[in-house]
């Protein structure tokens, strides 16, 4: 708890620097990553982040120490070469994109490892700091680092905000952009530069191996909550910032822990929550709304059964009769009876069940939709009258009043359905 208070009250200026750094980094990479996610190029970020390793090592060798300017420049150059090679290979060989990305990523990383072992054997005492670039250590961000990493992050955020229109054109409709006279090649180039920059600023805090997560996961998670681009960007940034701070806090409390893995674990946790529980798109949400829907269909089927019986002149059914109609759904039917009773759609008289006026109205609606759809299927889609029932059985529950009106109009307010049954109206 003491740690918690100490960390979050920012008594220690260096912690403040770290947190500011992480926030800027989170927003910048989430922005860039969301665009590249929408562009279906998420893995290019992965390739770039592995590919900056040799640049970092060369920068270190040239500077002879952990100088942020040398390292950032080195990383930027090798990230740039990797990006260029990826698109060159795509254009000029028969290799598919995934093979190219995997090759570039692993070759650059392998070469980086060679350089790393060379540095290791040279016995440079600052070597330990270099290891931080592989898995990240946000706590090691110093004020001088903040100026560079933070400054670059601000540039990324500003560029993407100011040129939101251009970059969304790139992602959603590049050909159209070209047709209406936008310099799409330059925009693509600018975007690649921003992408490399966002990787470069992340390597200190997150590390090269896991940087891909900060680019990919926030956008993918945010996509479950909204379809609107601006909201998507904000939400992605929020996810990245929250996980960034969580990861930093953990490696502050447990100093032997690198930051990157904890940021990734928190991010993935947020993503998992999104995949499961986001309204509309979450798997669990979908599961529940499906259950809800199945209950609704059971209720409406029961109403229909009661109504059809009425058409045959029988005003009520016993519960046993109903169970006989749906022999495999006893439990569901019991729930439906209770629900319909509570809603005032049916009356229960000892063992006998009958529709209320309101119930008759509702039942008529469902039967009407069923029979209208059956009529539509036979008249407009040439489907034999003995095959239309199943489809109508499903669609009667979702047809909206507007669609009902259109059906009525198109079919010219028919009296009878294909089975010569009356289409009931109030």
């Amino acid at each position, binding site marked *: 708890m003491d740690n918690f208070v100490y960390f979050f009250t920012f008594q220690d200026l260096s912690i403040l620097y770290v947190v500011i750094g992480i926030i800027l980094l989170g927003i910048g990479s989430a922005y860039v990553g969301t665009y590249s996610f929408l562009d279906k190029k998420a893995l290019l970020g992965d390739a770039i982040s592995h590919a900056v390793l040799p640049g970092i090592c060369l920068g270190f060798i040239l500077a002879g120490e952990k100088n942020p300017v040398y390292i950032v420049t080195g990383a930027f150059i090798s990230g740039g070469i990797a990006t260029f090679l990826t698109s060159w290979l795509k254009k000029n060989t028969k290799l598919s994109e995934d*093979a190219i990305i995997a090759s570039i990523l692993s070759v650059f990383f392998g070469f980086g490892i060679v350089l790393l072992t060379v540095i290791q054997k040279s016995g440079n005492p600052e070597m330990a700091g270099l290891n931080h670039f592989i898995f990240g250590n946000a706590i090691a961000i110093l004020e001088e680092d903040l100026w560079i990493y933070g400054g670059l992050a601000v540039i990324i955020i500003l560029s993407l905000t100011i040129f939101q229109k251009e970059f969304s054109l790139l992602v959603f409709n590049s050909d159209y952009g070209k047709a209406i006279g936008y310099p799409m090649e330059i925009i693509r180039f600018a975007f690649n530069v921003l992408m490399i920059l966002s990787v470069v600023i992340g390597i200190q805090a997150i590390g090269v191996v896991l940087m891909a997560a900060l680019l990919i996961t926030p956008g993918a998670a945010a996509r479950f909550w909204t379809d609107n681009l601006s909201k998507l960007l904000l939400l992605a940034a929020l996810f990245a910032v929250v996980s960034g701070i969580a990861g930093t806090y953990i490696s502050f409390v447990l100093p032997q822990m690198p930051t*990157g893995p904890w940021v990734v674990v928190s991010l*993935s946790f947020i993503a998992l929550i999104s995949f499961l529980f986001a309204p509309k798109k979450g798997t669990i949400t979908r599961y529940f709304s499906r259950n809800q829907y199945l209950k609704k269909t059971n209720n409406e089927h029961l109403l229909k059964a009661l109504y059809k019986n009425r058409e045959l002149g029988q005003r009520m059914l016993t519960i046993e009769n109903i169970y006989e109609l749906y022999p495999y759904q006893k439990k569901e039917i019991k729930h439906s009876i209770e629900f319909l009773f509570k809603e005032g759609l049916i009356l229960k008289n000892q063992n006998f069940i009958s529709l209320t006026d309101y119930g008759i109205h509702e039942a008529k609606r469902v039967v009407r939709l069923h029979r209208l759809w059956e009529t539509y299927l036979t008249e407009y889609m040439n489907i034999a009258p003995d095959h239309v029932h199943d489809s109508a059985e499903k669609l009667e529950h979702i047809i909206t009043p507007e669609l009902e009106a259109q059906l009525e109009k198109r079919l010219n307010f028919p009296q009878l359905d294909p089975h010569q049954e009356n289409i009931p109206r109030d």
Partner: protein
Amino acid sequence: MSFDQNAFLIILTGSLIAISCGLLGVFMMLRKMAMTGDAISHAVLPGIVIGFFVAGSQRGLEVIIGAGILGIIATLIIDWLRKKARVQLDASIGITFTLLFAIGIILINLFAYNVDLDQECVLYGEIAYLPIDLWVTGSGTILGPRITYLAVLNFTLVAGFIYFFFKELTLTSFDESFGSVMGIPSKGINLALMSMVSYTTVSSFEAVGAILVVALLVVPPATAFLWTKNLMPLIKLTTILGIGISILGYYLAYLFDSSIAGMMVTVAGVLFLLSALIKGRSSKSAGTSMANI
């Protein structure tokens, strides 16, 4: 230079690993699953660490089992994300491997105090120590370097797998739906291939490291693909490249006093880029102009 037994053993082991990876890599590449291979090789890390913790050493069968399970879990998570949560494929891959790899690193840092697990060895491998890591029987007989035995076993299994399922692997790589139409269990073949990739990753990680396995998986097949038009030549050239990069990688690493595995990958990368320069534009334009006849 006289015959150097250590050099020979290291090169032999390196070649066997490179060939096993390359053979599987050919099919991963043709199925456009190179990045899934990359994801698997990152994702086995927590399995290695847990296996290590359970067994108390890097040598246990537990390590191989743990990593194998994680490799398959990774493909299942990717599949779940794609089909059930409806996340696009590239993002599913990215999310899965970064998460599993992060968990692996966290576990290493948690257990590092209890067991002697060398983070760098797991990640980058150190084939150079191979000659001193010997397999000794209970009665004290020395049978030779342990990792070489692992590589031989791995190579035998991979070669056998590809030999026996050659027809199915080829057909489902080229045209999966035609395969299913003919009653070939394409899902099963796919899962078997993924399992072989995970097993190969684990079997090789001590020598070349979990991350560099990817390079051996993708780069030799991609290089060979630039030079060949048929599957058999592609496989043969991949094999030759595997041996070539082991030999060159070993001596260059010796020369520069650096990581052998890293140098093997660097050599593979140089060969790859040279091939792309030589064959690049010409092969592509030939392909399209021929297709217009």
